[in-house]
């Protein structure tokens, strides 16, 4: 369900779960386009040789997915900030889920605080953080 007004937002409500495209093809294309064309983003075997469990999804691509999740829920929202802590790599070709939940509402300023978590199939948190979003 998408929302269009802050009056529709309730504390503790879950945003619709977002399944990001973590394919190596997309991660690799994105990394190359933004000038991060290192093997750690484009080649599983080469990434393993660097000591990583596999090729990674670039962090800024994950942040883009976080914004996409928020806009899926609130298309008219203005994302004021996204503050992320990268606890572990988001490995390409592994399924991940992005979840979000409303943890603060400031109706005066029309600001909503959202906890965001990127977790893998085992439920392990790879990235967490908060987003501050203004909703009309």
């Amino acid at each position: 369900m998408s929302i269009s007004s802050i009056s529709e937002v309730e504390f503790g409500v879950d945003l619709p779960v977002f399944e990001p495209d973590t394919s190596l093809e997309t991660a690799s294309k994105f990394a190359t386009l933004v000038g991060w064309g290192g093997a750690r983003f484009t080649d599983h075997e080469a990434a393993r040789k660097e000591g990583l469990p596999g090729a990674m999804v670039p962090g800024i691509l994950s942040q883009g997915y976080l914004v996409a999740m928020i806009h899926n829920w609130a298309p008219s929202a203005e994302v004021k900030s996204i503050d992320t802590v990268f606890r572990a790599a988001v490995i390409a070709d592994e399924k991940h889920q992005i979840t979000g939940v409303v943890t603060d509402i400031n109706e005066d300023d029309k600001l909503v605080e959202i906890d965001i978590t990127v977790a893998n199939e085992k439920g392990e948190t790879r990235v967490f953080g908060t987003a501050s979003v203004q909703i009309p």
Partner: protein
Amino acid sequence: MLLDLHTHSIKSDDGRAKVENYCQWIKAKNIPIDGFVLTEHRQFDAESGYSDLAEKFGLTILKASEVETEYGHVLVYGVTEALTQAFDFASIKLSLEMVLEVSEAHGAVAVPCHPGRPRVGMFAHTEELGIPKGVKIVEIYNGGSRDKEDQIAIDNAQALGYLGIGGSDSHIVSHIGRCATRFDEKIENIDDLVTALKTGKFEAVTLKESV
């Protein structure tokens, strides 16, 4: 009584949760804990007071610290002003044995946390540095654990005869209460907590499946 013994607020450099929002969350989501302990990184937050929030929400809110040693991170419960003068809480190169010994001398209890974690967990270093003296309790359930980190903690704690606590290690509001520690006695203040830890009357619990 269930307490989450490992949480961070915006007072920690990587913490993103306001304490009031933790309280709102616990009540709104019926998280089955009776309170939590704020363990801010590399400091003791002496200035903040949460008694009004504790009363408003009917929760126990206590303060402790998480410091850093050559064996990884360590929770310290029962921090006093004198203890904060005894070693540099902001240092990232403390000696674990010193932290354990000095904490005990000041009536506090030091507990290595997420000990099964690479780099910042105690058992990642015992092969190289040996088994440290003075450890009695370790955190065996941590809400942020990945892979087999909790199992490594449990197995090693059992082998070495350590007691275990649980804490969520939450840095954002919605992660509080994933792990906790059950106490037989009511814990109303930090002295109660330290006493309970010293007497060993507690049990680590994980609530990851239900929270």
